């Protein structure tokens, strides 16, 4: 033990490049290089903004999911929760526009409702997991089915559509933007930065990692374990609400297939980004990279006729498995 190694934490942190840390970034860069080689339009302004805007919904949800998974939890219900919240929002706005006309106020009320509904849905998941002690996987499997069936019922098996007047008034929230960036991209970026700061530099983020790492140790260290876990689900619900607010103006409709498999894409993005599925360690920037990797793969397949776009799922599957294999502790098993 040398005095140098004790005093110089900076050097210790910048130690050898660890593939497990930068692996996702390397994969993203490789993917971009392949894309540029296969199609010169790949890095064109319109393609890049298109990819980013489409990945924003999953991305916003995945940021919330990063906290849930880091704290040792899981939420399978977010996809159908998004569909259900979108359905509620559309119905409420249509109903309000009857009396209030196609006004901005109606849209604002719809947004407030969507955020509130997401928050409430997250709270229900969280309270049942923390107070009633139901396994997160089982509980959210249940609420996933409940929300999916509720949206199907509300839409009567078909589609709920926003009135055309409201729809055109609301659409700039998806299609508009400033400085050449559309709103979903801006919101995704801001939330990503905020999420990264919260995860890395606040007591809440540190507590999430401690709970996921060993709940008993966290409890014995006077961390409010149940409160923090509940907060992660509430935050995830809120991020679903935000994603819905950005998503509804895109198509102006919701149906039984809205948000299908979003939960798995969000979880996959979190894991590809280097967060541990069993909890204890999470990073939001990794999740963002994971989201980008997944959407670039499908974009690449659509742009090139090299591989059929029908194989999208297969390639994403291989990437997910590779990511986990590469991140596994490579040291000897005890």
């Amino acid at each position: 033990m040398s005095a140098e190694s004790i005093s110089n934490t900076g050097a210790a942190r910048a130690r050898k490049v660890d593939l497990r840390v930068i692996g996702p970034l390397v994969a993203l860069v490789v993917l971009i290089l392949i894309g540029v080689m296969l199609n010169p339009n790949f890095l064109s302004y319109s393609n890049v903004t298109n990819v980013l805007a489409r990945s924003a919904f999953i991305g916003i949800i995945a940021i919330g999911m990063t906290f849930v998974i880091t704290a040792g939890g899981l939420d399978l219900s977010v996809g159908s929760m998004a569909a259900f919240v979108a359905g509620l929002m559309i119905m409420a706005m249509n109903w309000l526009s009857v009396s209030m006309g196609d006004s901005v106020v109606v849209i604002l009320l719809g947004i407030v409702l969507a955020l509130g509904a997401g928050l409430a849905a997250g709270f229900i998941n969280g309270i049942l997991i923390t107070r009633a002690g139901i396994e997160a996987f089982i509980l959210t499997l249940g609420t996933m089915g409940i929300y999916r069936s509720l949206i199907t019922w509300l839409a009567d098996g078909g589609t709920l559509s926003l009135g055309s007047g409201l729809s055109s008034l609301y659409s700039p929230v998806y299609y508009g933007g400033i400085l050449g960036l559309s709103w979903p991209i801006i919101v995704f970026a801001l939330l990503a930065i905020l999420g990264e700061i919260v995860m890395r530099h606040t007591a809440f983020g540190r507590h999430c990692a401690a709970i996921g790492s060993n709940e008993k140790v966290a409890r014995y260290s006077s961390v409010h374990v149940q409160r923090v876990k509940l907060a992660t689900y509430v935050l995830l619900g809120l991020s679903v609400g935000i994603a819905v607010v950005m998503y509804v103006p895109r198509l102006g409709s919701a149906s039984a297939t809205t948000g299908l498999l979003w939960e798995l894409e969000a979880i996959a993005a979190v894991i590809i980004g280097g967060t541990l599925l069993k909890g204890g360690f999470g990073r939001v920037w990794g999740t963002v990279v994971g989201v980008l990797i997944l959407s670039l793969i499908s974009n690449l397949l659509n742009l090139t006729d090299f591989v059929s776009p029908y194989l999208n799922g297969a390639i994403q599957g291989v990437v997910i498995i590779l990511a986990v294999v590469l991140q596994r502790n490579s040291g000897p098993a005890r």
Partner: protein
Amino acid sequence: MSEPILALKGVTKSFGPIEVLHGVDFALRPGEVHALIGENGAGKSTTMKILAGYLSQTRGEIILDGKPIEFTGSDQVEDLGIIMIHQEFNLAEHLSVDQNVFLGRELKRGWRLDHRAMRTRTAELMSRLESRADPATPVSEISVPEKQMVEIAKALSRQARVLIMDEPTAVLTERETEVLFRQVERLRDEGVAILYTSHKLGEVKRIADRVTVLRDGIMVRSDLIDDVTEDDMATAMVGRELSDLYPPKSDRGAEPILEVSNVSVRGVVENASLTLHRGEVLGIGGLVGSGRTELAEAIAGLRPRTGTVMLKGQPLAAGQVAQAMKAGLVYLTEDRKGAGLLLEKSLRENLTLPLLKDFGRPLIDRKREEAALDRAIEDFAIKVPARNMAVGDLSGGNQQKLLLAKTLLSDPDVVIIDEPTRGIDIGTKQQVYNLIADLAAGGRSIIVISSEMPELIGLASRVVVMHAGRVAGELAGDAVTENGIVRLAMGMEQSGKENAA
């Protein structure tokens, strides 16, 4: 003297560039208990793991029945009749006791498992170990000492020729230790060669026939047990004379700081009461399972309870850990690895976890955290090979010092320390004892819970003894003796100052 069954000859072991064993010669003979002792990090574990095939030596030879042998793995070694009982249990928590005992070598009738035979055999083994654990109980539901007994039953069921025991008594009470020793003696008489490690030198003196001392990876001395005293062993381990192990006791003030009355925890503690004064070191004795830990956890807000706890005249709400800490009462757990430290996290993250809010809000001030770690490393003399290493890679003694630093970070008035020196070496023990005395001298009040009688007697001026969930009695001053504690702990007398209602 008989020929060794298993021996090491000039064995060295390096991890990367660092050599941790330097040419060790070591022999295990049939019908002999050979104790291997040394401070944490002296190379005991490495030696044992080489003998049991978990690690391979860098240089030197392993000799089995007089012939050099190359171990290929722990499975092969077990088949040769060399069994190691690990300090950290290797039990499948959700399987029952008998399923664990026969794990990997299940008894079969044809292609089907012979449940009845395994259950009967397990019951025999467990009763031989005087354990009341039902073979059908899942291991997750039995106590820590019982788990140790299951590990031993597992080894007994395997017809061991060589038995390697890594601190088997660390989690056992004195009575359970006696039971274990009877089994060890029985095995020895049957001709099994036994390697035994412990930090408790009294036990080594009691059970071993031969003792070898390791220090910094070198074999310092190896003697028949009758030729050495406990002092000789301690001196050889530490490499210097150990002055009196326990610091002088300080006088307690008269002012009560913690008053616990009629505290009950369902099923484990009944109407326990005690009083702690400012500047006092109060001991809590009793067998493992007598409710000591549960009482302490109830006081600290880690368990639901009834009854009242008054700290500095103010009541503490039940089940509120954070509030108790804020009011100035903290608890240091006996379960360092399960409840004390996040093993895969860094020292810094562990140290500041209970008090993160004091390190900047809303954003954590990394510099202040690092400064706090600097102070802790210095104040508690924590040896850190690399500052960013995972806490799980520290030695037991250094983990305990870090846990102390973490628990004391909030500058509490009352500290409850459960098993302050479990699984740590004698040099570190002394540091911990001095620290406890310093805390008391500085006006803090300490409760020490311990299974080691000398520790209670050496540290505490007053000892409360628990038996079967109740306070069996209290001893003070010259009445604090091993005999007195044992009598109360075994429920042999209900006299003393009866505190419980």
